[in-house]
């Protein structure tokens, strides 16, 4: 046992001290924080304000083009098409909408001019405005009055609640669950890949540099393999912890800065609100926090740590065994594929799981240890019955114990073999051999 700790310590220190670890530790959170903060920030800023000149020869849409938050309309301030176009060229307006003088039944040739190609969303916006008005006019023409039409409009927004077994209701957020599920699944997927490959390369290095013969004289191959797998797992966990700490620090920091700089423009609305909410309302991270509120945080965190570690242990041993069968990185490729296919499959099928997080495909994929770490994480974000989570964890533990035993049987023979042409038949023989 003493030796396992020595091996873990070496594997851990030799990796944590590398420059690349330091770089990843700093760059990772910056990347995450950027990914999370920037879109929120941009959403808040929105697109730049626009000024659109409308030349409506039909004079039907006067009341439609009232100034909006981001768009200012100049309705029929200029009625001459040519001079309107020159205004665009001079840059006085961003866009020019020309509605020809036709009857309301025949309005298909509306044109829009601008210096640059307009975005699809802004065109859609204009189209929707016109279409709504035309439909409205036609409905009125067919004898319905305005009051009735107003009544006809229904506003529906479904709020999702999830009921736990103990009966407490929490407001669900499908978007939030999806985001959290995706991030967690991807982190596990990446972690298994990056650190699994690290395991494999470590084994190949020991094997090709032949230091293995000295080490094996003092350490049992199984201890050496476990030491390596666990040591690298600790590197991954340290990195993850540092990432979480640094990312939240950066996000909280930037959140505070934003909330201070953002307050003045938001003042108008805040006046009506509870003064206590002031800061929260100005914080662009508010939506993120709301999403987090809707999740069963302890369950998600616990499940994440569990599947993070057990998923890695399940695959880590396999990667080590693959490394033991190869003399070089290039040799390892042929055995990598069967190891990585279930992982890639589980990421590819995440979309399907997402459509029906409690369907039978999702259920079985979260039970089979090959796909469980990635798939179960996605499901946990949506809430999973305790018995399913428990069962999956039991399978996972049994799975990684079996996998490590399986891998160690190949590993103990493989690490001492040089120059042998290894194929699956040879691997099977190593596995069966008794030495």
């Amino acid at each position, binding site marked *: 046992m003493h030796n396992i700790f020595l091996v873990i310590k070496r594997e851990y220190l030799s990796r944590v001290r590398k420059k690349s670890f330091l770089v990843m530790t700093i760059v990772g959170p910056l990347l995450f924080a950027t990914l999370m903060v920037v879109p929120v920030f941009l959403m808040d800023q929105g697109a730049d304000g626009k000024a659109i000149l409308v030349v409506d020869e039909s004079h039907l849409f006067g009341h439609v083009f009232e100034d909006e938050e981001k768009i200012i309309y100049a309705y029929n301030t200029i009625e001459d098409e040519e001079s309107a176009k020159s205004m665009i060229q001079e840059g006085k307006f961003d866009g020019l909408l020309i509605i020809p003088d036709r009857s309301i039944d025949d309005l298909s040739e509306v044109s829009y001019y601008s210096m640059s190609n307009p975005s699809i969303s802004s065109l859609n916006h204009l189209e929707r405005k016109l279409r709504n008005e035309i439909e409205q006019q036609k409905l009125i023409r067919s004898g319905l009055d305005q009051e009735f039409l107003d009544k006809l409009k229904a506003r529906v927004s479904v709020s999702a609640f999830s009921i736990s077994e103990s009966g407490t209701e929490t407001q669900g957020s499908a978007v939030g669950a999806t985001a959290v599920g995706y991030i967690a699944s991807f982190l596990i997927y990446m972690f298994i890949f990056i650190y699994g490959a690290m395991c494999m390369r470590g084994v190949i290095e020991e094997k090709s540099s032949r230091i293995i013969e000295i080490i*094996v004289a003092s350490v049992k191959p199984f201890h050496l393999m476990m030491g390596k797998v666990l040591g690298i797992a600790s590197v991954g966990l340290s990195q993850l912890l540092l990432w979480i700490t640094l990312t939240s620090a950066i996000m909280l920091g930037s959140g505070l800065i934003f909330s201070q700089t953002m307050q003045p423009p938001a003042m108008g609305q805040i006046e009506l609100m509870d003064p206590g909410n002031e800061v929260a309302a100005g914080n662009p991270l508010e939506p993120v926090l709301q999403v987090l509120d809707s999740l069963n945080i302890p369950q998600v965190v616990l499940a994440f740590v569990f599947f993070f570690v057990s998923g890695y242990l399940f695959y880590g041993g396999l990667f080590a065994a693959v490394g033991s069968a190869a003399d070089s990185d290039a040799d390892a490729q042929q055995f990598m594929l069967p190891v990585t296919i279930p992982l890639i499959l589980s990421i590819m099928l995440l979309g399907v799981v997402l459509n029906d997080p409690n369907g039978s495909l999702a259920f079985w994929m979260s039970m089979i240890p090959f796909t469980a770490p990635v798939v179960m994480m996605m499901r946990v974000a949506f809430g999973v019955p305790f018995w399913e989570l428990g069962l999956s964890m039991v399978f996972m533990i049994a799975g990684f114990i079996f996998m490590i035993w399986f891998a160690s049987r190949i590993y103990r023979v493989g690490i001492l073999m040089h120059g042998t042409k290894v194929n699956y038949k040879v691997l099977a023989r190593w596995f069966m051999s008794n030495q």
Partner: protein
Amino acid sequence: MTVLDIQSVSKAYNGHQALKDVSIQIPQGSIFGLLGPNGAGKTTLIRIITRIIEQDSGEIFLNGARITTRMVREIGYLPEERGLYKKMKVGEQLLYLAQLRGMSKTEATKRIYEWLERLSLTSWIRKKVEDLSKGMAQKVQFIATVLHQPQLLILDEPFSGFDPVNANLIKDEILRLRDQGATIIFSTHRMESVEELCDHIALINKSEKILEGPKIEIKNQFKDGTYIITHRHSLNGSSGFDVLSSSLDEFGRLATMIRDTEGKGSNAILQSIMQNTEVYSFIEKVPTINEIFIKSVKEEIHA
């Protein structure tokens, strides 16, 4: 007293017989040369001793007890294919390897400094192994092998990769360790070093042991009554000996190799020669290990 007792060890890989019923006794305090051509099974035997692989049959006893993995930690083993963690610093690497063998940190650190000093590597202690020259890395590897003061050292081709100066340095260290009481097995096919260092040898060929014993005894055993004589007049084979070859040396003397055919001994031959010519020198040709090696291996092939 026997330190390592190898009894009828056999090993086959996928149908290929790597060792066949090999028994060797290695006496305490000896420098034991394990000789054999490439592929004879030397490394397999060493790997069985160090428990890297398991024999199919036979037993190995270390100091009278059947060898176990735990006991192997007490052996100092220098594999033929040298290897160290390239990215690790010299000092840390040695400490790690020493600790794996069960040494305490303080004890190991003390000895690491002693040994680095002895092999003049002290200034490299904080350098990574990949920054060292090949010879220096070899020295570090040697230190890793002997750091825990093993009573039994197994060195597989210890001099490969060393320049003559460093090879001498290592040779002196091996002798010093022997004088301190260690038993040293070394496997090689470089016969000069065997001639110089070994007091016992065993020869393995084609997975079988064909020779074993003290070096002197083996040499005596291989003496075939050949003498080298330098003399003035030409010699003809006469009663008691055959002339094997004869040539003029740089001083214009004849150098002749003869073989005693009747086993009468050197005095009898010398007497008969002295009657015919003037003898400048007369020596018995003791076979070198190299000759014994080649002769034995060839005989095996012809047999």
